[in-house]
């Protein structure tokens, strides 16, 4: 037989990874070259990029279309507040603690809502988020229905100066985005990732080829919930204030995120990242026009659904399966042209 080998990187992906590395370096240095407002914007972009990547992991790969991920964003915010205010944890420690609590709580939730299918599952996740909202609205020590602010002491514990705090929060957002995208990337590259990608494409064939669908989805749900909780903790550290309505907002933490993923391209790692950039480009250029901004978002969403149902990245990816993250396996050494 001919001399064949299997490789995962392509010239495109090698170039893309180098570009990504350079971009990360530039963004890491942002506190030195960007103003306070830009820094906040960049931080927000990274947080939304994380949420979009996670929602895509859940819906685009595992087929778990959740409209209740705000449950974990809000839980993360509240757990972060509780950990710093009541348990006296350092904010930097409180974030991973919140993430672990989120993952732990998501396990029984998954066991419950996995009994539902399709649209019922989506509605079930929303109901869970509402239950979380109503529960936290009952906790008077966290401000009940009107919410509470992060004590000055906790904020100062992060850094004495305001610039120092802003920079640190920004780096945390950047770090979490790298962690989230990196974790999803690592998962997809692993054996479990092969199984998950198969589930994305065809569940019937996947289970007939030995893949335990329930268990794979369960893992994805719990990992996603834990990381979403982490993002939520940081979101409310940045906001310094939390209330049930803000913490469990379906619009802010799920609707916008779904928009980003659908625009960018569901079921690919690149899609949500591209979608986040497109969303923020639209928002920053059109937000001053009020209602027109919302109409523009709607038009973009409809246009993408009609002309690029697999999202903008789906359009670029095409039949050749171009990718920036080296995930797929290509056979090298075939005599055919093109490889």
């Amino acid at each position, binding site marked *: 037989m001919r001399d064949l080998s299997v490789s995962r990187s392509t010239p495109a992906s090698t170039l893309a990874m180098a570009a990504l590395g350079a971009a990360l370096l530039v963004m890491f240095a942002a506190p030195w070259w960007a103003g306070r407002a830009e820094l906040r914007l960049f931080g927000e972009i990274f947080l939304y990029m994380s949420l979009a990547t996670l929602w895509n992991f859940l819906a685009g790969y595992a087929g778990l279309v959740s409209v209740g991920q705000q449950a974990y964003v809000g839980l993360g915010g509240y757990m972060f507040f509780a950990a710093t205010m009541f348990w006296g944890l350092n904010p930097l420690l409180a974030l991973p603690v919140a993430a672990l609590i989120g993952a732990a709580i998501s396990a029984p939730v998954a066991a419950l809502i996995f009994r539902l299918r399709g649209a019922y599952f989506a509605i079930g996740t929303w109901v869970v988020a509402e239950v979380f909202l109503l529960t936290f609205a009952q906790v008077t020590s966290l401000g009940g229905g009107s919410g509470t602010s992060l004590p000055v002491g906790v904020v100062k514990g992060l850094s004495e100066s305001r610039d120092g705090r802003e920079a640190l929060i920004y780096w945390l957002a950047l770090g979490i985005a790298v962690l989230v995208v990196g974790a999803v990337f690592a998962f997809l590259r692993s054996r479990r990732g092969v199984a998950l990608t198969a589930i994305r*494409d065809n569940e019937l*064939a996947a289970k*007939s*080829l*030995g893949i*335990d669908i329930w268990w794979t989805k369960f893992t994805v749900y719990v990992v996603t919930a834990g990381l979403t909780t982490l993002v939520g903790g940081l979101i409310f550290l940045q906001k310094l204030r939390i209330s049930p309505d803000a913490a469990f907002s379906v619009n802010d933490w799920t609707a916008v995120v779904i928009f980003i993923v659908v625009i960018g391209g569901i079921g690919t790692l690149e899609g949500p990242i591209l979608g986040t950039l497109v969303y923020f480009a639209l928002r920053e250029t059109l937000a001053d026009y009020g209602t027109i901004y919302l109409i523009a978002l709607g038009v973009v969403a409809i246009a993408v659904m009609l002309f690029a149902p697999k999202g903008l990245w789906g359009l670029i990816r095409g039949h050749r399966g171009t990718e920036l993250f080296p995930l*797929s*396996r290509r056979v090298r050494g075939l005599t055919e042209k093109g490889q």
Partner: protein
Amino acid sequence: MAILELSGVRKAFGAITVADDQSWSLEEGEALGVIGPNGAGKTTMFNLVTGTLPVDGGTIRLSGEDITQWPAARRCRAGLARSFQVPQPFGGMTIFENAFVAATQGAGLGVDEAEALCLDVLDRTGLLRKANTMAGGLTLLERKRLELARAMCARPRVLLLDEIAGGLTEHECKSLIETINRLRATGISIVWIEHVVHALLAVVDRLIVIDFGRKIAEGEPRAIMDSREVREIYLGIEADA
């Protein structure tokens, strides 16, 4: 001992019985052919055996072990792989990756071993030069071939083939028969549902005939084909097709 054994397997969708007290067995290393008119319940029987459809009653045994309540994934890992009559490719993955899923998940191989197996199987099934093509863009024939390749990569002890010869040219059909006979030589037991009878007869040791969800005949292939009962049904298929 039989490697696969069905006894009294029943399945009904409402008033329609699709598997009616089916009992048959497959010996180790044997190739069993299954024929019957369209809608007779042949594919349903595969769905019951592989676990994508739960039985209403009866038992299914693999190497003597009762697998009737096992989920489909576990049955595959235990050595039961199938090809789908209506191809079910992983459309967003390449042909090679489709095979790789079977080799890592179904056969449980490590990466290096899995890669070697996939390349070998793709070579034997004539798909190697298309290894990097996305499975979503294949022709029906290529998809059918991929079904066979993927099932082979799961390294089954029992291989269930569902109409993989339909639409092949004479030459392709011959090479398919060769591939399957080589598989048999490695000790794999095969159940093959097929309308292309001459291909089936070139491979199988025994034939069963299914109609209305029931096994109506069983025995030596030529004798079965020549039996009056089967000829009537079989000619019926010919007329339909």
